């Protein structure tokens, strides 16, 4: 019995997949459509990240225009509730992050050296 019927174990690159018997049509169009729709869904559902990115641009006239546009986009989507899913997920993740083992205090607890080390490593 052939232990590697797909041939994956002998591929030179991870992207070398066995091709299906019937060729899949129009690969470039398919790929471009996937990229376009992924970008569109992120633009609609992750306006907060776009706004955050615009705040980190180097100051200047062009970046000021980008910030205004990003804030406007964020506010417009907020009216439709499209920022809500990412806010909810961030909240869930933050509450998972904040959970502690029984008897364990907040990060660093009462150890002043740990609190100082945390502050220093965060600053560095």
């Amino acid at each position, binding site marked *: 019995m052939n232990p590697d019927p797909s041939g994956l174990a002998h591929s030179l*690159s991870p992207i070398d997949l066995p091709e299906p018997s019937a060729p899949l049509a129009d690969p470039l169009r398919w790929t471009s459509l996937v990229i376009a729709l992924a970008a569109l869904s992120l633009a609609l559902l992750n306006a907060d*990240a776009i706004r955050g990115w615009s705040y980190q641009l180097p100051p200047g006239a062009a970046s000021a225009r980008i910030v205004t546009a990003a804030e406007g986009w964020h506010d417009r989507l907020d009216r439709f509730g499209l920022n809500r899913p990412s806010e909810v997920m961030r909240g869930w993740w933050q509450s998972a992050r904040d959970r502690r083992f029984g008897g364990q205090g907040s990060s660093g607890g009462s150890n002043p050296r740990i609190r100082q080390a945390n502050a220093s490593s965060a600053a*560095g």
Partner: protein
Amino acid sequence: MLFPTLTFGLFFLAVYSGAWLLKSSNEWRKIALLVASWIFYGWWDTRFVLLLVASAFLNWGAARLIVAADGRPGLRKAVLALGIAANLSILGFFKYYGFFLVEAEALLHQLGWQRDLAIMQVILPVGVSFFTFQGMSYVIDVYRRETAPAGLLDMTLLMSFFPHLVAGPIVRASHLIPQFQRVPEMTRSMAAMGFTLIVWGLFKKAVIASELSTGLVDPVFFDPAAYSGIDRAAAVYGYAVQIYCDFSAYSDMAIGLAALLGYRFPHNFNQPYRARSLQEFWRRWHISLSSWLRDYLYVSLGGSRHGLRRLCFALAATMLLGGLWHGASWNFVIWGALHGTVLAAERLWREFKPAGWRSLPPWLDIVITFNIVCLSWIFFRAAGLSDALDLLGASAGGGPAMLTPMLLALILFGMSFHFMPRFSIQQVAMRLRALPAPAVGLGVGLVMLVVDSMQPEGVAPFIYYQF
């Protein structure tokens, strides 16, 4: 320009569109990719684009001279030596100049020479070790007649191509130049695998590596003496997971991005923490570097052709130099020496193991190998030798202060990747490619949204950017 940022996302959208719009002319397509790669690299420091171009010219020229000297073995060898020396000089100046001057000054002070040497602050160009090794392998391959000499455009693009430029994989000329010489073809398999690798890499980097780094590893390695044994152990195992998720994420994204432009990059990671020996670990970890070290250093040092003593020397020297490749620091020397010693010991054990001794069960081999790797990671990660020794020394009492349920879950989750069926990612991609584009596009967008919601504020650079 970091991969998991919106700036890079916009850059890649432009490059993807331009590259496929220029599909009718391979030469213009390559020129566009070259310019894009220089913009990508110049985002850190425009001055170093000149270094990149000079390095490509140097290696292209050396290979041409080697070909021109065909029939004159002495001259060929001399050109090869000059080409390697020039590459090593670039690497040596940027990576080791400061280190050796500081060490020399300390030595002179000990000998009573109290004058200060003029120590210059040398900025390390991002990815210099990667593109220098890539250039060297090209010159050596041409000398060994293992690859045909490339045109200037192909050679410059080989060294500058942005997906692998700053942290590998180290793609050999024999692998990529033939792909540059024809118009690439896109298939849905390539694209589906590209999307899967990009999203998977994004998750490993932005969620697992970033969370472990900021929440556990960085604080504990900053002041190990302040933490309990549980926190220190968690930080060491956490770092093992962090560096895997960070570095393999970069490789995954690089391979995925190149796939979306129509190019195939080689494997770079293969579930390394399931290795049953250190020798196997190096067949699974940073495969493009370990195979580079094997083909160009270990073999040149004699390899296994001159008896056991020479083999052990070649192993130890290769790993020591592999350690120094990461940077000029005694910690990297210790890291390399540890790996070299254990590799030599494994070889000696195989040679002299008494007949009739039973082998260890596979799971115990894996546990022992993993813990040796983790021990070496302590020296790799610690800021200095004393920090590494502090971490290994007596710990503060008490329970965990930094380890939280989520961090523990991330360590276990990160470890579980090494024990999944080997081609799980490929299986996902094979299902995706058959789906309609709107479903895949929305799916990719939603998964990226989830990942973005989980990542800590800001994205730290990849660990291997510093090498």
